[in-house]
């Protein structure tokens, strides 16, 4: 589980669906490639009904149409699959592997809802949370518990009315802490505010509280992995169901 990695940075870009994460990643890639060798791991949810997934982030990556840049970009779409927790650890090994093989930056795009998705973000060295003027029902990232993970907050869609209100609402929600992340306003559509992003990302410091929130996720992930990787896991599950083994006894046997 421990990352084995070379030089380089793993960042997560997370936030509610439709907020413009993929378009932002595209804007970033246009500004990073070909000087930087970048990998994008685009995570989308698996449909709980069918077990299938429609992975559509690639549609937004217009940068792949530019032959002078496409060769320094690798995009891999990943479905969250079951809630087994396997995907976050797969993403972690993929990210380490990419960093060890010449990629200087790995971007994990993930919807900021659901345990698996949040754990995918928690793998990253830095987490960028994206918000935007949406359906007018408040700050989505706050509801999803994403704000504490953020090292930088991007309010996208600055070309739309309502972006300033989102910035104000976020500032209000964050004003209780003295370690709050910077908030910037951009438009992935017009490119407004995007030129500063690459430098900001490479210089981004991790906040103390986001580091802690991230480590909490990582610790939980490692613990779950420890339990499920135990060769007796299934057998002990059977004993809980069939012999009335207590959870406390089960935990003791597994750890």
């Amino acid at each position, binding site marked *: 589980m421990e990352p084995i990695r070379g030089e380089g940075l793993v960042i997560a870009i997370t936030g509610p669906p439709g907020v413009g994460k993929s378009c932002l990643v595209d804007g970033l890639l246009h500004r990073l490639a070909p000087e930087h060798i970048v990998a994008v791991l685009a995570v989308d949810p698996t449909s709980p009904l069918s077990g*299938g997934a429609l992975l559509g982030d690639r549609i937004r990556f217009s940068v792949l149409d530019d032959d002078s840049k496409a060769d320094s970009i690798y995009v891999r779409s990943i479905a969250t699959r079951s809630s087994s927790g396997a995907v976050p650890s797969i993403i972690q090994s993929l990210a380490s592997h990419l960093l060890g093989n010449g990629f200087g930056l790995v971007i994990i795009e993930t919807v900021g809802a659901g345990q698996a998705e949040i754990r995918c973000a928690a793998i990253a060295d830095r987490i960028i949370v994206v918000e935007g003027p949406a359906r007018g029902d408040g700050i989505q990232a706050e509801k999803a518990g994403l704000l504490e993970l953020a090292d930088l907050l991007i309010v996208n869609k600055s070309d739309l009315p309502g972006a300033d209100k989102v910035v104000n609402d976020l500032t209000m929600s964050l004003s209780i802490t003295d370690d709050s992340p910077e908030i910037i306003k951009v438009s992935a559509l017009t490119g407004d505010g995007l030129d500063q992003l690459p430098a900001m990302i490479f210089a981004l410091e991790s906040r103390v509280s986001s580091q802690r929130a991230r480590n909490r996720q990582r610790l939980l992930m490692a613990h779950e992995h420890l339990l499920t990787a135990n060769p007796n896991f299934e057998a002990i599950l059977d004993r809980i169901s069939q012999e009335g083994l207590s959870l406390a006894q089960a935990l003791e046997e597994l750890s």
Partner: protein
Amino acid sequence: MGERQRIIIAKPGLDGHDRGAKVVARALRDGGHEVIYTGLRRTPNQIVRTAMDEDARFVGLSSLSGAHGHLFPTVCNLLREAGLNDVIVFGGGIIPDDERSALHASGVRAIFGPGTTSSEILEFISEAAGRNCGVGSQDPWHWGE
């Protein structure tokens, strides 16, 4: 239902809309597969690159413009050149009967016309997944007929 497959749905060529491709993409997702949808106007090179990066087993191509006669075989050739011999190619769109055998010969394993049901496409996926019928295979098998 067969195993879960990773399937690229792409629309080469310049014609305008991708309604059909989206319907197929959703049907495959609802059938339990992971579908990577690439959007409009991808070049054959981009499609092959996507299949490689995404480690896909299937590539589904949609064409309405009549460009399939050239574009579908080009994709098959480029896949073989890239060493992606296991990738299985299928196509959809308005494709006249007399053009089908040339497409089959070039490596396209199924051609689905406008009236095709989702379940037929899903049946094809699970049958083809169990055969050695990638673009590099000599097996003359193709869906239907």
